[in-house]
């Protein structure tokens, strides 16, 4: 029987790394969960943590479930094309996967563009709270699910992401013509000094 592929991509950003998250997704219990959910591949982009992460993976090799492939790597020049595309559903080959990411805006925007469910895990050890703020915003708007860097929370989030994805499906149906996907947002090409003022007037009359 041909099994459908299903990919889970974990990404932590290229510069700082995110040790807590990398540790949690290298737990054999998490692997068993993924395998039970039909995932066939777990790919972890670890940044500077690649050294100990690959050592950890090597020491746990025999605990990797039979139908799951676990792979760690430092970074890749084009995360969107090289890795995210693997998470996309492909008729007869792959089921829709999931992206687990630190709350870096580049990754979030890429995942949105490819059209993938995203779980964001803000790195709370970073000094500024921009990541937490971004994670909150994404959850509020329904763009992503938030989770802490614990494999149990991640498992719950993966279940939730599947459900949320069904919602987003209907909110963002596939288009062939140019759509305005962000209702209420101005279009860059239509922004002129005068027209923005007009827009403001229009908004005021609407209010």
């Amino acid at each position, binding site marked *: 029987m041909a099994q459908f592929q299903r990919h889970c991509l974990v990404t932590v950003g290229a510069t700082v790394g995110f040790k807590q998250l990398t540790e949690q997704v290298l737990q054999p219990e998490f692997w068993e969960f993924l395998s039970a959910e039909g995932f066939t591949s777990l790919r972890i982009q670890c940044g500077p943590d690649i050294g100990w992460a690959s050592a950890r993976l090597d020491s746990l090799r025999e605990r990797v479930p039979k139908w799951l492939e676990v792979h760690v790597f430092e970074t890749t020049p084009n995360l969107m094309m090289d890795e995210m595309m693997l998470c996309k*559903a*492909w008729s007869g080959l792959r089921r829709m996967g999931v992206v687990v990411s630190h709350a870096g805006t580049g990754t979030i925007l890429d995942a949105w563009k490819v*059209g993938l469910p995203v779980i964001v895990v803000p790195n709370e050890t970073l000094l500024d709270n*921009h990541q937490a703020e971004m994670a909150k915003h994404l959850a509020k708007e329904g763009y992503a699910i938030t989770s802490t860097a614990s494999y149990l929370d991640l498992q719950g989030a993966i279940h939730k992401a599947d459900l949320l994805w069904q919602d987003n499906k209907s909110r963002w149906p596939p*288009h062939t013509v140019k*759509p305005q*996907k962000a209702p209420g*947002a*101005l279009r860059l090409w239509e922004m*002129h000094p005068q027209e923005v003022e007009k827009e403001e007037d229009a908004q005021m009359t609407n209010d």
Partner: protein
Amino acid sequence: MDYTLFVLGSGGHTKEMLMMMDDGTLPFANTHRRYLISRGDTMSEHHLADYEARLQTLCAQIRGTSSSSSCSPGTHDKRTVTRARRVHQPLWSTPLTALLSIVDIFPALLTPPDNDVGRALRYPGRVFSNGPATGFFVALAVHLLKMGYVIPESCCKVIYIESWARISTLSLTGKLLLYTGIADVFVTQHQEVAARYGVQNAGEIVFNSRRLDDIEPSPVKC
């Protein structure tokens, strides 16, 4: 005829700018886009090449499907400038690198594109920026050139769109532009930050971007 300048800078800002541009707007006949890229920013170069290639493809698709319309993606060129401030660069050395970047910015603003658009329009009509430090120095250069009557007031309208990543506070570039008042249009992409500084919220313009399924639909999903 239209000639527009885009200030790109660092991977994140460039990605957002190109997503805001890639909203399916066409045709771009008699339209010239000039990009300012910081020296050594290869990631922005790659993103830009992708964007321009997608625009070509979109035009070819439109030409292929409709018999009457001729779709043109317009023209574009790039100018490289010294980076105004590297990430983590000490603040004290910023004036020096900023000065070097301004030296590159003037000719980028004053040299018209070498094509029909450039022969008709000497200066860009609009200058778009979304957060890199270079954006402030471009706005400053525009301001100085207007003060010296080198370029007319009606040209080079500076349109600043704060980065989508800024939800509750402005970036340094945003603050500088707000407090100096040298941007002609100043908008943010979130209500919270707009309300805090009393500026206009333009909504999440990045999400006007075409998505991959719009560009090349994948086979039926299971």
